[in-house]
């Protein structure tokens, strides 16, 4: 080789090295980008940009099913995004992030929940806890995601801090807004009623009906006109009429004309000098609304969850508070609903149409912990139970628990478990099950109609958090090659992240859990990042289809299929 040729070779290598060093491998360069935008009520343009990888369009693959993950950039200056993961059974790109649909220009949303279940034709409602903003997404052409609407803070003057959503048959959605009105003082709702609130992220929260284009159709008060017990419902600053109305969980039975919400916290409180020790900023109430008029939900009842048999050293870890989640039964012959608290209790009421629903504790997370750790199980007080969901066929109740109670053994272990609730529902309007002894806390209710633990998967998470949210896969691939909705759930998705600012984070993995015919659960070890042996898809990664933006925090998860692939 001549000197000149050697010099040329060296130059080429050096230039290549320079390019690599300066720019790094460019994921963006490999992705196809498309942008959709809408105009917000403030006159500004809001947009979502897809970054579709080559794996998003693979020839020769069967129709595909997707797992949508609403994730926040760990770096507050980075874009939040919906990650589209290939969740197709048998797909060569299973677990691959084939698209990240980034929210442009509006950072620090703290992506939180989307609706509990997606049906063909529905938009996806994705809430930003911190930005008080809801993004409405068109997923009909998955894996591409398009922005269909945006609901801004000023669009919901009587409420703030959106949490969860339930999409109605007409495509509109109810959203639970935990926080109070944007501006302290009186706020008048769509039905003409007025409540006095103590401001953004305070109290009372509300329920908002959202249009598929993001518009606010109605704001409905969650607080009673007469107020509630100030000793039980601390508000800071104090309100003329105390309220515990800070709705978090929200589910609907349109056939029964009922909506159920569960109250969480007056969410703006750090442990601060302003809040007396032991004060009840955590809520123990469940609200039921008449939704005969979808634009004017009427609050029918406010039920306090009863205390259970446990006596905790910390009063804040007693069973009834805070009621993070609620879930309704689904079949026409059932009228019941469940509610769960962050302190380990699961409650049940057999009839949400009753004038005064009666709630009873029917399970304690301690029994599920005991199945995993027969000796020295973690405490359920402070275990931060979260996602709670009945299967569409009403056979199972799925529940996710963040971790063992503080200071207890195996505290780094969270749970995904399934309860067989058939006997409980079969008991009709007169259930006998009641967890009212410590033995029943530890081993499950003694009455024959009590839920039975059908399956449990421990989730190790060495961080301060653990598994928090989940979704059911309500699709199956038919013999015709198309996806069809099913009420037999065969797998779940679980995300390991709560909310970092609370001090409860997570290892940022998204996992699939297989559900057996009897409710037995098993972690799907084949759903993982390419080239990795560890199950689950890790969101603590350097590169995304939208670039080297670093770790992300996955919260809301949802199974979905492109319109053309589902019948």
């Amino acid at each position, binding site marked *: 080789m001549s000197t000149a040729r050697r010099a040329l070779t060296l130059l080429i290598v050096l230039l290549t090295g320079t390019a690599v060093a300066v720019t790094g491998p460019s994921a963006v360069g490999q992705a196809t980008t498309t942008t959709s935008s809408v105009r917000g009520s403030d006159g500004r343009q809001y947009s979502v940009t897809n970054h579709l990888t080559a794996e998003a369009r693979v020839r020769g693959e069967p129709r595909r099913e997707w797992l949508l993950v609403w994730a926040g950039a760990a770096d507050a200056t980075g874009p939040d995004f919906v990650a589209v993961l290939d969740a197709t059974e048998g797909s060569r790109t299973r677990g691959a992030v084939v698209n990240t649909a980034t929210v442009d220009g509006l950072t620090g949303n703290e992506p939180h929940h989307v609706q509990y279940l997606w049906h063909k034709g529905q938009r996806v409602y994705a809430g930003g806890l911190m930005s008080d903003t809801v993004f409405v997404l068109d997923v009909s052409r998955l894996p591409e995601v398009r922005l269909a609407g945006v609901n801004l803070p*000023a669009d919901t003057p009587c409420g703030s801090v959106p949490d969860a959503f339930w999409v109605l048959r007409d495509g509109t959605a109810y959203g639970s807004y935990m926080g109070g009105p944007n501006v302290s003082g009186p706020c008048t709702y769509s039905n003409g009623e007025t409540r006095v609130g103590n401001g953004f992220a305070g109290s009372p929260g509300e329920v908002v009906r959202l249009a598929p284009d993001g518009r606010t159709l109605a704001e409905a008060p969650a607080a009673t006109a007469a107020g509630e017990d100030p000793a039980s419902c601390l508000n800071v600053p104090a309100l003329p009429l105390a309220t515990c109305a800070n709705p978090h969980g929200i589910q609907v039975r349109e056939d029964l004309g009922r909506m159920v919400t569960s109250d969480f916290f007056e969410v703006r409180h750090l442990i601060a000098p302003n809040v007396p020790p032991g004060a009840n900023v955590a809520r123990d109430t469940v609200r039921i609304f008449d939704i005969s008029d979808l634009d004017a939900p009427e609050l029918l009842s406010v039920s306090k969850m009863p205390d259970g048999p446990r006596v905790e050293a910390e009063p804040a870890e007693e069973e009834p508070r805070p009621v993070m989640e609620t879930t309704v039964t689904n079949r026409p012959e059932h009228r019941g609903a469940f509610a769960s608290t962050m302190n380990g209790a699961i409650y049940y009421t057999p009839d949400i149409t009753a004038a005064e629903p009666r709630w009873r504790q029917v399970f304690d997370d301690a029994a599920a912990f005991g199945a995993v750790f027969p000796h020295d199980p973690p405490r359920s007080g402070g275990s931060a139970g979260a996602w709670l969901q009945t299967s569409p066929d009403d056979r199972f109740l799925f529940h996710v628990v963040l971790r063992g109670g503080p200071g207890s053994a195996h505290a780094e272990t969270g749970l995904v478990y399934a309860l067989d609730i058939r006997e409980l529902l079969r008991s009709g309007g007169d259930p006998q099950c009641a967890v009212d002894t410590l033995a029943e806390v530890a081993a499950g209710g003694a009455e024959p109609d009590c839920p039975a633990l059908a399956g449990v998967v421990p989730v190790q998470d060495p961080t*301060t958090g653990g598994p928090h949210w989940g979704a059911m896969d309500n699709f199956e691939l038919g013999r015709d090659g198309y996806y069809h909705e099913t009420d037999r759930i065969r797998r779940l998705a679980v995300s390991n992240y709560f909310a970092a600012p609370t*001090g409860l984070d997570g290892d940022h993995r998204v996992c699939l859990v297989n559900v057996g015919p009897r409710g037995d659960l098993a972690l799907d070890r084949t759903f993982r990042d390419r080239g990795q042996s560890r199950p689950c898809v890790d969101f603590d990664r350097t590169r995304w289809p939208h670039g080297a933006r670093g770790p992300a925090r996955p919260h809301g998860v949802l199974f979905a299929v492109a319109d053309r692939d589902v019948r």
Partner: protein
Amino acid sequence: MWFAVAGAALGQHGHDVAQVDGSAWATAVRVPVLGALVVLVGTVLLRSVVPSGRVVRVVAAGGAVVVVAGEALLTAVSPRPLDGVGAVVVPLALAVAAVVAVVAAPRRLRTAPLVAGFATVLALGQLGRVPVATAGERVALVQAALLTGVAALAWFAVAPVRRAPAAHAVAVAVALAVLAGTAQLTAVEPWRPVAGVPQVRDVALGGAAGRVLVAPQRPGWNLVQVAEAGTEVGVDPARLVPAAPRPGAGGAWALVELPEGRSTLLLRRGGELSAVPVDTGTTVGPDLTSPDGPECAGAAVGALVAGRVASLESCPADHLDPADADALRAVVAFVAGRGNRGVTLVADDSPRSVAAAEVVLDAARLRGTAVTRWPASEPASTGPVLVVAGWAGAERALRAVATGELPGGGSYVAPWLLTAPLLTIPAGQLVPLRTGPQEPEPLRYVAALRAGAPDATASAAGYAAWRGAPDDRPARLYAASSVTVQLSTTGHAHGGATWFPGGAVTPVSGPLDGT
């Protein structure tokens, strides 16, 4: 280079408390690194006149190894490494390894030149990514550039002899540049404070790295901020005073009287004494002894992290910005528009607050809104609280709203009260702002703050100073609140640059009339 920073501090003060960065063993590492650098540069400079035998090549390669390995070690164990240095050191280690390989087996390893060249270019690429906004970043850039030069010199020292005058000339130029650069970092002392200009400086305190802010760094009383309350500061080891929290401000603060010109600020924590060189210059600066001092210091930090090295001549509380006056008039109109017949006004005696109170009173008079002054009078029985005091007065007022001492109709706070310690108080705060904190430019300010002064708290005054130009967009009302219950005291968020960790500042109105 890294060793040069500590060397400067030692050289200037001449006693053992003067060491700002690093421990005794780190200093022990720096000495052979400096020696090896001299050997390497000398070898290159003499290359054209002294035959390059195997011994010379081994010595040169050894020198390069000591320099790069020493720097890598110091970077790895540093509690606060300079940004960019680590990314450059790693490829350089590869380049030097190639050099060593050539020395060990010059005939067999034909790929070594490629490896060395590739690694050096990789290092140069990383070098191009080192930010240069702050003094610390500029030092990091020089340090990384010098290390890259070291790798190039090492290669020249061991490469086969070529009678190319140009190559020799380049090598000599690089060698002289490395030598001069090192001298710059050691003798000229890049960390030396600029006389009369506020300074933020790294300091080892109680076994941990921290940063200290000195403002205005002028003769007389100065405000010193450290991260931890209880840290003692002063100029006389026998008369140090403990830093303590200030209302509405993050960190811990102490007032220290500094003499004219150069002196040493002492800090003690956990029994360990550290020293920071200060230079107050000759002219007296603005008064930071008032409760508004921390806000003024925050403005100084904003200017510093923007790269503006200038003395502090005034404080935000010295006068009312006309744009803020417009925003306050608009707030009064908004409050009146919601049907409030009265407000409780909270002000203090700073020139800005006095002027702001007059603006509010005039605007309220026009709209028929009754104004009650607090704490001079009993608060209005209903209606919101309008706060135009400084940080300290605002903190007291907002806590009074939270506890019910002041009416719970919410609080409207002046634009200069946008800072996290005041927003965490649950008082239903609304603040008129022209730019939302989550918009790109304010986030760039916070990112600069995290990089240049990570213990500092983002503030409206800091942002205005960082921006350096007025914002003429119309103001909107933003609701500000914590949005998360603290469910665990063991975990904490790592959110990167953010104005309000765990909280939100969210627009809840359209443009306010008259702004």
